[in-house]
């Protein structure tokens, strides 16, 4: 117990605390971006997209090539890459995803297959070593004793902007409204005149857009390789379960919880403890409230 308290003491240090918070925000933002698309696909099409991480990987490589090979400024390269990947992925929607709509179990295993195809296709195309997207800025911002890398700050700002845009889209556009209706009950939505095939395509596009953006940001602060997608996928999966599968606010809440847990527990108790804790919490939650914090139970 004493050991426990003495470890928490680290967090009282204002420098550390400030950084813990900044880190929590940037981790949360990325997790939320990946998880939102994941939960959207599940909520509307009942597809568990185990290939979701690979779209993040594709986004990161698009961003990498545009900045490094074509020397585009990142402010243009980022949106161009992300939209390009999402648009190109519509081919995959037609080739692969549409077979799995409303077939949850089949989608899990089948998309796992797609996951492998994308990863090892990536290995053939790009080799396995890790690459670096040049930092947008090498500067750091000093707020009192707290050091914030500008690079991270930009990521946080972009992620938050994307999340707000997503919120506005889902709340205030016709397509967003139709998507919410479809997420609640596809059949009813259909009888109300919602064109589900169209909605599926829009939802897919938006989900991949978010994943590719998350991947680009991930590649920007970490590194780019064909295996990039594995960690974001696992995190998205946990986030979505934590928040409730299919629930959009749930994904946001889950992402924030996980990001801050990782930041706080990792700092105070080390990485292994943080991994055990996040898994343990999710297991306990599944046992007592399998539908997640903000999800609704199914019959």
């Amino acid at each position, binding site marked *: 117990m004493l050991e426990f308290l003495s470890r928490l003491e*680290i967090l009282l*240090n204002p420098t*550390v605390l400030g*950084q*813990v918070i900044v*880190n929590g925000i940037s*981790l949360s933002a990325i997790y939320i971006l990946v998880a939102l698309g994941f939960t959207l696909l599940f909520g509307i099409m009942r597809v568990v997209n185990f290939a979701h991480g690979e779209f993040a990987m594709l986004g990161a490589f698009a961003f990498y090539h545009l900045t490094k090979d074509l020397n585009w400024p990142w402010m243009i390269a980022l949106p161009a890459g992300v939209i390009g990947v999402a648009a190109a992925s519509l081919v995959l929607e037609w080739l692969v995803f549409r077979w799995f709509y409303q077939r949850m179990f089949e989608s899990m295993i089948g998309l796992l297959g797609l*996951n*492998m195809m994308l*990863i*090892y296709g990536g*290995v*053939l*195309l*790009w*080799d*396995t*070593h*890790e*690459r*670096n997207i*040049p*930092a947008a800025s*090498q500067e*750091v911002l000093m707020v009192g004793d707290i*050091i914030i*890398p500008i*690079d*991270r700050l930009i990521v946080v700002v972009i992620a938050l902007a994307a999340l707000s845009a997503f919120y506005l889209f889902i709340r205030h556009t016709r397509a967003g409204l139709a998507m919410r209706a479809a997420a609640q009950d596809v059949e009813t939505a259909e009888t109300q005149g919602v064109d589900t095939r169209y909605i599926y395509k829009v939802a897919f596009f938006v989900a991949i857009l978010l994943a590719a953006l998350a991947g680009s940001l*991930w590649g920007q602060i*970490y*590194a780019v*390789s064909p*295996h990039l997608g*594995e*960690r974001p*996928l*696992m995190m998205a999966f946990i986030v979505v379960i934590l928040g409730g599968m299919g629930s959009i606010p749930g994904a946001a809440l889950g992402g924030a919880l996980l990001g801050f847990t*990782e*930041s*706080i*527990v*990792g*700092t*105070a108790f*080390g*990485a*292994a403890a*943080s*991994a055990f804790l996040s898994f343990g919490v999710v297991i306990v939650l599944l046992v007592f409230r399998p539908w997640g914090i903000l999800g609704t139970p199914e019959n």
Partner: protein
Amino acid sequence: MQSRIWIEGAATREVQHMSFELMKSLRAGLIGGVVFAASSFAVLAQETLKIGGLGPLSGGGTSWGLAAQRGMDLAINDLNAAGGITAGGKTYKLELVFYDDLYSAQGGKAAAERLVHQDKIKYIVGPVGSPPALAAISVTNPAKVIALTNGYAPGVLKNDTPDPYNFRLYNTNLEFGPPIIKWIRESLKDIKKIGLLAPNDAVGQAVAKPLAEDYKKEGFEVILDFFERGTKEFTPLILRMMAQKVDAFEFDGNSPGDAGLMLKQIRQAGFRGKVFQVGGPAVDEIIEIAGPASEGFMTYDFVDWDMPKAKLLREAYQAKYGKGIISPFMPAFYHGVYLMAEAIKRADSIETDKVRSALENIDGFDIGIYGPVKWIGKETYGVNRQLMMQYFFSEVKGGKIVKIKKFTP
């Protein structure tokens, strides 16, 4: 989640080459479908001697396996171009058979079984990591197959095998750790407390604890933290160490990609002290990832690219595989093939008993990559089967690697 889904897997080099060619063409132009090309079989006038290779060709360790495979491939091409090797009055062309060991015990065993019992191969270089190496030697030793393994676990050499046929291909931190640490204590005097961050995978666990002991023996204070492999956000761990007032960070046991990331994040977290690694020599990749943050980073290194043969090797590699980063496994496995060939030549036979004794007496052999090498390890492992070669402690200055201290065996 790792995306390996094999119980076992396998590869031959033709396809790797093919896929590499494919990769280049894809990179150059539009992305087309997968093109299958039949590999052409050269008509062989001479006898063929197959050399086995083992390394991970799938999953997280793929870059190590590819480097090993490419190194062996280049060596075999060079040896064949020089007329092959002559032993017992016959001249042999060499041929590479390289299999995926999945970086796991099961995969290592399966691949070794196949090399030894189906392909009837007597000479193997690899596997790359400890778990597959330990499993592979349980197959190769009883079959009297010579294996030049990597894998840092002491058990690779120090085990109960009565009559082993395996050797280790290059230095481990048991060899190079203490001298470098001694040098650090003498040269970087203001360092008292060292933060050691390592993954809890096979490499990290095998390397970090002995290294921490070596540091403690030299009077350093050490804080050691293991993290779950796959972690990319190290800032919380770094902050924890910084709050405990470490003077320097040590990265040995990390993959170069992770080490590069940590370096970047350490500088972004505002740490100004020294960062180094006594082990893990893939500096190029670390520089690629960390960018400007790599300035001043110090590392163990065992390849001197200024050596005449090393220069040629680098050119040959870049001509064949592009200008990507070169992993130090590449020259190491290149060297391994040469070591094996030399022993066969000296034994003047392809019987493994004779080749083994020739290999045991190969001290002083030098192909111009490492300088002369020799076998050590009697005190540590009970057998003199640990290859020892020169090594360096280098520093990144102006984006380039500069050797600051050379250690010779």
